[in-house]
């Protein structure tokens, strides 16, 4: 029985290797896609919208106002998280691009901004969106300057550091009298200005002019990329090679569908069924061929990513497990397509269209993070999306074992659904024949 299964699988693999078209779409095309996209996304600009999660660890007027300003920014889609851990978790799960955390003491640090201090903001970003995180930091700085309005319009908050500065200057014996007098005049002017504006509505232009006079940073952003084991993603190729895998899987699926439907079309299926083997053996043999070709394709691509582009897997054994599960699931997808479409024309035409659409929606051409929210929601139905998630985890994204197994479990469920549809379709067809 094993001999027959291996014979069928070997035959299919041999035919695949000798079919230049199938080989191109199974191996070479995915490599081209991965390298090309890696070069493109390495210089990618900001997509819209940019989703972030905000945490205010110690509520205060400034922190709350800052968070409100972020929510009101049209370039951002902001959601709230109760604490730092859940915000970082949202980044790790790719639900958002970055977590912006206003730490304990954020408001208190506002009093130090005229004496060399700044209000701290922690920013934890998705490394696959490094370019956008840089832009986000600029955005935070911009909002930080706008928030100065609150600081300078709060006379008591402003006067406390002013008073301290005045005392320090008056007690400073290293300054000459003329210097001391000049600086104290400036401070007195600022105090007068602040006192005059107390209770008045202040225009943003006035604040803009005032802030422009000071060359300081109102906020200090501590940015870090969310990685597991403190390992940075080596390059954009860490993101694009899993995308290449998606296209390789699409090639394997179509090659398998073609061989399966081809058996029916060219009459060899009759010959296989006439042999002293059950239909289950034939299916297992053909499925084994598809699994092996998918696995080899993934291994080739990820080895290339490692050896040439420096994408070293975080956890090779879990990656191998993920690749194996992905191979089995896509074999089930291929069986489903082969079972649903009877003629070779329908299977190759409609099947190819289905696979291409699923691959694109699943993030094969444009990474999910660059997709509009609606398309990202639709992508949940694509097994290619789950394949990327399952591979990215052990490849570079990391996360807990439970999270990685959850990704593999998700794609396994897709596989079970595909296999079930295939079994039902075959049963219906056999009943009808």
């Amino acid at each position: 029985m094993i001999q027959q299964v291996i014979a069928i699988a070997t035959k299919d693999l041999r035919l695949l290797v000798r079919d230049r078209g199938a080989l191109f779409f199974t191996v070479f095309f995915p490599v081209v896609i991965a390298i090309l996209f890696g070069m493109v996304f390495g210089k990618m600009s900001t997509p819209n919208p940019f989703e972030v999660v905000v945490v205010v660890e110690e509520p205060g007027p400034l922190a709350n106002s800052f968070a409100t300003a972020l929510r009101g920014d049209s370039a951002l889609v902001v959601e709230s998280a109760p604490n730092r851990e859940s915000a970082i978790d949202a980044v790790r799960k790719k639900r958002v691009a970055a977590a912006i955390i206003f730490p304990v003491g954020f408001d208190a640090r506002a009093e130090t901004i005229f004496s060399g201090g700044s209000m701290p903001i922690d920013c934890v970003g998705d490394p696959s969106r490094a370019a956008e995180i840089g832009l986000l930091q600029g955005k935070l700085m911009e909002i930080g300057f706008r928030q100065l309005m609150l600081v300078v319009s709060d006379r008591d908050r402003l006067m406390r550091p002013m008073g301290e500065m005045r005392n320090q200057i008056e007690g400073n014996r290293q300054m000459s009298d003329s210097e001391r007098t000049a600086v104290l005049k400036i401070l007195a002017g600022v105090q007068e200005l602040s006192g005059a504006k107390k209770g008045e509505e202040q225009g943003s232009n006035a604040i803009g002019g005032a802030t422009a006079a000071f060359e300081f940073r109102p906020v200090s952003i501590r940015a870090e990329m969310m990685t597991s084991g403190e390992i940075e993603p080596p390059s954009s190729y860490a993101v694009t090679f899993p995308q290449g895998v998606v296209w390789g899987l699409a090639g394997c699926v179509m090659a398998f569908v073609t061989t399966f439907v081809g058996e029916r079309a060219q009459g060899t299926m009759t010959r296989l069924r006439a042999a002293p083997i059950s239909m289950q053996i034939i299916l297992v043999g053909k499925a084994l061929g598809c699994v092996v070709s998918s696995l080899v394709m993934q291994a080739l691509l990820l080895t290339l990513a490692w050896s040439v582009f420096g994408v070293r897997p975080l956890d090779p054994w879990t990656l191998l497990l993920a690749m194996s599960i992905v191979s089995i699931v896509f074999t089930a997808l291929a069986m489903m397509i082969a079972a649903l479409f009877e003629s070779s024309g329908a299977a190759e035409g409609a099947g190819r269209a289905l696979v291409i659409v699923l691959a694109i929606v699943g993030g094969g051409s444009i990474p999910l993070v660059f997709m509009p929210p609606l398309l990202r929601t639709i992508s949940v139905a694509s097994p290619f999306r789950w394949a990327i998630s399952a591979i990215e985890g052990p490849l570079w994204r990391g996360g807990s074992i439970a999270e990685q197994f959850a990704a593999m479990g998700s794609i396994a469920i897709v596989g079970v659904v595909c296999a079930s549809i295939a079994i039902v379709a075959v049963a219906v067809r056999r009943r009808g024949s």
Partner: protein
Amino acid sequence: MLSLRSLRRAYGTLQAVDGVSLQVGRGEVVGLLGPNGAGKSTTVAMATGLLRPDSGEVELAGFGDPINPHARRQIGLAPQELALYSGLTATETLLFFSRLYGVATRRDQLRTALEEVGLSARGHDRVGTFSGGMKRRLNLAVALIHSPSLLVLDEPTAGVDPQSRAHVREIIRSRATAGCAVLVTTHDMEEAEKVCDMIAVMDHGVILAHGTLSQLVAAHGSKAGAASRGLEDVLLNLTGRSLRE
């Protein structure tokens, strides 16, 4: 060797085979003749276990119903379609099918099988490069590779040149001489006359006549005597001259 008893099979409202009974003994070549849509292919499919009859029995002497894999091991099938993989070589094709039948074929056995069908010089060439006659011969070689007790050949010489046709007929006769039971479907009257020991004429799912060539000609041939065109007359007399779909 092969016994078909009262086989019936319908496709929806179409009764494709309606009570066919036929015997094929060891060393005997039985021809199944009939126009298109007569029910020959359905009969062959049931005889080889590819299709389950609605009623009736198929039995392979000593092995039971060919629906069972154990019995199918005794059958060599050459379908009408050239059921071959164009990406494999002739040798790889024979090796693959011999493995499916659980036969450990040695290199010299493969060479002998290719020699039998006149393809020994092309063993390492891909099937996709073969002519129609060569493919037809390889199609037959695949049916023979596991030395079956029953050979079922569906239009074995369709669309091939006279040389290949003659070669295939020689192979059929030599296998029968060696004790193999052979069931052949054909539209080629000359082939049936030259190869078959017994001939069954079939139409509309039933066997209209069954016997040796001389018996059929005597019973159903043209009354023109010496001017008779033999089996073709028998077929036309039995099945009519109206065109079939």
